[in-house]
């Protein structure tokens, strides 16, 4: 075997230096302990004595939420929890057996609850069971002497009085996430319930108040002797919304069994009176911890119940968009109200045969008739003259293509296409034939129902953009008048009145005795139709979506109502009755008051 002389001594010679390093470190450390224990020992001894104060939080009551008429939408109800104070336990097994018997569950379930929280901070009692019945509460309270470790804790749970009716607006609470804690450590601490969605989320800081604290003096066994001091909790503020519960109820009832959205807002100030998204969900599911199965069911439901269809789903606006073109054409001087176009039911544009929805054609139509009877041929020609970029410009003036600034978060921006968008997003030039589709609100153009309501509000209030909001009294000033000819706006308003109130108007079915309603129908094709197929012949999921957008009273509008019904067929058929119902309810109530 080859023998190699090892360099051994140089290794050995370096070891003492490490020994010195260690000795120095230990001496430094011993000195630090000497300082803390001997020099400052008295001070720390005193602190240790004072450390016998135990801090117990007092939960603040969360603010209530009311509708515009003072009806309670969200309430707090007491719920009883069973806590286990480990410091007071003598015979934990007997206590658990007792609790298991009262609660009618197995001891292992309680033991896992304890294990799960075994690392919780000192003195924190462990949560054994939630939502006890009053009978259970009394049985456990009576046994207090025998089992001093049990405490009953009253917790206030959110009660959404109207359940799914207001779920999309109000949202729900959930346990604070790490992100919440990191974002605002002053207001949030672990285990807090915070607003997760909707109003509960946006106005969380307002609603939550501030938790208080009790300082208890505990003895060496951890038992409470006296109360040393307390800082009371500050309740959260109540919140008054602009919503009208009754409108909400009517629209929800109408939309039952369908998918759709309905919005009502006051065009004078942007107050949202109604915001309905169907189908909805039961927010009480979130009051207690959701199990993953329930969560999956909600998220994966084919109808996407968690989606707020008024602000999160976008669709083509259909013929409602014609009011934008009319304003654009008049303001730009592209057309005069008296100009007429002949509608034969179909025409040839860009070498393509395009149809009007009315197979037999409208004959000679001017702008007023084109709006009233929703003639497609008229607007094909107008769109061709304006071009996509001018159409997009006016659409944006009416607030489309960007979020409305609604105080409930999660809004979609929608899409208003132009040539630049086509180049940057599709990497292909805009095809002029598409302009023809956009002119009647089809093709690559997307809006939310709330955006449509805001657009209609501009017409209703004579040219100003509102900021929709649900919190009453929030300052939401109107925009300066938009750059559209006021005469164009009043012309279109009058034509919209004709839609509902004159013979051949597409919205005639909405007509109400005594109230002047103005509106516009819209239809969104789900599948492109090669010919005039009747919608009733199509399976439901291929049927058109129906829009109806309106305001009333026509002379001095105070309410804008927009309805959108998925697969509802032609605009006046499915969406119009909902709009009518809302006006009936609204004006009946205002007559009564």
């Amino acid at each position, binding site marked *: 075997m080859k023998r*190699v002389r090892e360099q051994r001594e140089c290794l050995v010679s370096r*070891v003492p230096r490490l020994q010195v390093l260690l000795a120095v470190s230990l001496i430094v450390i011993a000195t630090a302990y000497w300082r803390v224990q001997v020099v400052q020992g008295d001070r*720390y001894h005193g602190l240790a004595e004072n450390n016998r104060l135990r801090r117990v939080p007092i939960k603040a009551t969360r603010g209530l939420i009311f509708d515009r008429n003072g009806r309670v939408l969200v309430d707090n109800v007491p719920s009883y929890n069973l806590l286990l104070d480990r410091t007071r336990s003598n015979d934990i097994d007997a206590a658990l057996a007792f609790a298991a018997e009262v609660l009618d569950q197995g001891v292992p379930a309680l033991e896992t609850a304890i294990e799960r929280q075994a690392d919780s901070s000192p003195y924190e009692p462990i949560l054994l069971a939630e939502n006890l019945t009053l009978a259970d509460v009394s049985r456990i309270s009576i046994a207090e002497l025998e089992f001093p470790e049990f405490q009953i804790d009253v917790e206030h749970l959110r009660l959404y009085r109207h359940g799914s009716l207001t779920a999309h607006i109000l949202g729900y609470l959930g346990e604070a996430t790490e992100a919440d804690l990191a974002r605002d450590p002053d207001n949030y601490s672990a285990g807090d319930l915070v607003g997760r969605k909707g109003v509960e989320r946006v106005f969380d800081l307002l609603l939550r108040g501030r938790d208080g604290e009790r300082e208890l003096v505990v003895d060496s066994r951890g038992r409470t002797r006296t109360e040393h001091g307390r800082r009371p909790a500050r309740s959260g503020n109540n919140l008054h919304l602009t919503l009208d519960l009754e409108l909400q109820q009517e629209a929800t009832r109408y939309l039952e069994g369908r998918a759709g959205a309905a919005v009502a807002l006051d065009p004078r100030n942007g107050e949202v009176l109604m915001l309905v998204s169907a189908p909805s969900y039961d927010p009480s599911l979130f009051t207690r911890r959701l199990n993953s199965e329930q969560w999956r069911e909600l998220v994966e439901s084919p109808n996407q119940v968690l989606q707020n269809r008024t602000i999160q789903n976008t669709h083509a606006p259909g013929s409602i968009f014609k009011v934008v073109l009319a304003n654009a054409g008049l303001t730009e001087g592209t057309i005069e109200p008296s100009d007429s176009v002949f509608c034969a039911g179909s025409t040839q544009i860009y070498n393509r045969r395009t149809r009007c929805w009315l197979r037999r054609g409208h004959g000679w139509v001017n702008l007023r008739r084109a709006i009233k009877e929703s003639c497609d041929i008229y607007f094909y020609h107008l769109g061709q003259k304006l071009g996509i970029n001018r159409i997009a410009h006016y659409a944006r003036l009416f607030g489309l293509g960007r979020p409305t600034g609604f105080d409930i978060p999660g809004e979609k921006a929608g899409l208003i296409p132009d040539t630049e968008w086509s180049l940057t997003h599709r990497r292909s030039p805009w095809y002029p034939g598409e302009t023809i589709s956009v002119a009647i609100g089809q093709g690559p153009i997307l809006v939310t129902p709330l955006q449509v309501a805001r657009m209609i509000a501009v017409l209703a209030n004579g040219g100003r953009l509102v900021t929709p909001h649900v919190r009453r009294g929030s300052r939401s000033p109107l925009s300066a008048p938009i750059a559209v000819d006021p005469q164009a706006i009043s012309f279109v308003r009058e034509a919209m009145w004709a839609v509902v109130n004159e013979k051949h108007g597409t919205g005639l079915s909405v007509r109400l005795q005594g109230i002047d309603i103005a509106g516009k129908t819209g239809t969104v094709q789900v599948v492109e139709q090669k010919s005039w197929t009747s919608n009733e012949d199509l399976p439901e999921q291929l049927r058109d979506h129906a829009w109806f957008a309106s305001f009333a009273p026509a002379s001095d509008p105070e309410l804008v109502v927009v309805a959108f019904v998925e697969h509802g067929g032609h605009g006046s058929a499915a969406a119009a009755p909902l709009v009518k119902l809302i006006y009936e309810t609204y004006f009946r109530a205002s007559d009564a008051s």
Partner: protein
Amino acid sequence: MRPTSAPLTLADNRPHLRHLAGVRWVLLVAALALAGLGLATVHSASSELSLDYLPRQAVWVGVGILALALTFSIDYQTLSKFSLPIYIVGLVILTAVLFLGTVRGGARSWFGFGSFGLQPSEFAKLSTAVLLARYLASTNRRYLRLRQIAIACGIAGLPMALVVLQRDMGSAMMFMPLLAGMLFVSGVRWQVVVAALVLALIGGAILWNFVMLDYQKTRVLTFLDPGREPLGAGYQLRQSKIAVGSGQVAGRGYMQGTQSQLRFLPARHTDFVFAVLAEEWGFLGVVGVLMLYATYILNGALVAVRARDRTGILLVVGLLGGFAFHVVYNTAMVVGLVPITGIPLPFLSYGGSFTLANFIAVGMILGVDFRRYVNR
């Protein structure tokens, strides 16, 4: 690893039983004394809990002593011979734990078996020490070449990176003193040390100040240490110092510390067990325990100095380096000299894998001593 000439009085290729008498048993005595003290303190720190950790820790100490006997009986040259496969198996297990492990305290570094858990990173440190000892022994130069330093860093860096990925920062950090001790003893020119420090500082500073955005820094910090609580750290240190200080000179007496008995002090049976000891045994207890640690480490150093060959020296230095750093950092952290990180105190803190690994290390060190006359 390779047979060498050495000052030998007795040449034999097996250690003789009569050499047992010459082994530094004081090392074992110190270790057992510390472990016994650990059991008592863990009991004091957790007896008021629904779960007393004493029986579990006692089981681990028992298993540890058996493991000690086993590793003592295996020749470290045999270990060294198989160090590469052992090391690779260690890497595979560390990788497996990333995918199959359970999460405790934010770190995915555990294999759970019912209520017991094993932390492979503790054993990876041992296998890394053995491979490093083998490699650095083979260099056989007065000073290491840069390439050799790089290879040694790679050997330690690979398992360390895997432990970082488990988000177990404290354990990952512990590969450093192990590596540093062994490199130092193997011979690193001071110019290299200075250059490395300067490069690391400059690189880190540039990255931190000019490249990384605030949210990235936060992300890095959170990634490195998910258990980090901005509010909790101050509380922990304050309670720890109160516990230590209120022990004063003679301590409050066993099971009498209010800080621990009243549970003001978090993590009192694990990373902060020394605060409990300081509270109940006072400054005298602290000095006594530090002296026990010094006894262990300095006697270990004697084993290193008289070891048979380079592998033996390096192995003992590596094991002791990691051990000493644990002791120094933990006791310094408890009294507030260094930032709080999850580094437990050997033999005193509750923790199965850690205790087991420390006993195995004792077995290895004693084994090196036992075989100091062996010649093959």
